[in-house]
């Protein structure tokens, strides 16, 4: 039952997304790509879309994948799935564990989870880099192609801009424009 699978998959993602933002990118990549719901390129495309719309990434990608896979019912199942775990946890925390934040066990776990997120996002960056720069694999031919060179140049330029705190939407629009220009010029 695809609806159930959507719900359970995104429930899993929602339950383990700590540290916000793109912390669980590798989890999303695995779960979604392995089921053939979205390919690696589409996931990266969607990150850009999510940056340009309101709403957190985890929720947005649940809605998107859900709708691509099974229309509106799919979107509802996936989105509910991703939201419900945190809903339940917050209710429990609000009701029972007012000292949640100071709890030694929580603090201890977080001291392990925060660096883990760094390593995990690092691994996501690695696989994303492969998809962005060498989607068809390494070879002398691809590495001297216009597509490769232009994507490297865009990447370097945008990294500089990102660290200069240029707004993500500006970066996305610039990347799009340069991408179009390179596509037609080279």
């Amino acid at each position, binding site marked *: 039952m695809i609806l159930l699978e959507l719900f359970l998959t995104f429930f899993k993602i929602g339950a383990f997304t700590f540290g916000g933002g793109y912390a669980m990118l590798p989890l999303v990549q695995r779960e979604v790509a392995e089921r053939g719901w979205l390919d690696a390129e589409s996931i990266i495309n969607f990150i850009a*879309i999510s940056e340009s719309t309101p709403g957190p990434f985890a929720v947005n990608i649940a809605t998107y994948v859900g709708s691509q896979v099974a229309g509106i019912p799919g979107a509802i199942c996936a989105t509910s799935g991703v939201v419900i775990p945190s809903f339940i946890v917050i209710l429990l925390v609000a009701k029972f564990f007012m000292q949640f934040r100071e709890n030694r066990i929580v603090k201890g776990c977080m001291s392990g989870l925060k660096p883990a997120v760094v390593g995990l996002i690092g691994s996501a960056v690695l696989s994303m880099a492969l998809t962005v720069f060498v989607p068809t694999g390494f070879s002398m031919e691809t590495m001297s192609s216009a597509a490769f060179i232009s994507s490297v140049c865009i990447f370097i330029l945008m990294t500089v801009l990102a660290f200069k705190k240029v707004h993500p*939407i500006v970066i996305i629009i610039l990347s799009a424009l340069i991408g179009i220009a390179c596509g037609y010029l080279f």
Partner: protein
Amino acid sequence: MKDKMLIYLQLFLTFMKIGAFTFGGGYAMIPLIQKEASEKHKWVTDADILEIVAIAESTPGPIAINAATFVGYRTAGFWGALVSTVGIVLPSFLIILLISYVMQEFQHIEAVRYAFSGIRAGVLALIIKALWSMYRKSPKGAVAYFIMGASFVLAAFLKMNILIVIVFCAVLGLTASLIASGRDKK
């Protein structure tokens, strides 16, 4: 009874407004939540907002959703939490559904494909910037660096199940901090 209905409606509409107008994800929503929920409606205090932000760091789920659930619960119990959460999620849900259908129409246009190949390079830059931010906010020290390296290698090269990596790192962090605090007491 009518009073309760009014509160539910107010919560729903307020969080829908917040959910519709906050771009850039996560923390960007907090000032707006503070303005609406604390200043304007006086449903919670500023101290509560600080508390939920701190709590949300250690719970699964995006911070905006967590904050909505928390404020809703504090204001009007379970149903308050429910309408607030649905409210904050609904705008992005609808927008992404729209985008999902539109994307299918535009995907085969050449310019769009060029744009997205540029965009993907830009997204990589954004994620690397996010990675850097997470690194800066992460605990440092021998255990932390070990966890960063281990989680990276386990996920990127050994392709280990991400959930197992997460649990492993949480346990490691917890153990390390308990050992450290045990040592301090002596």
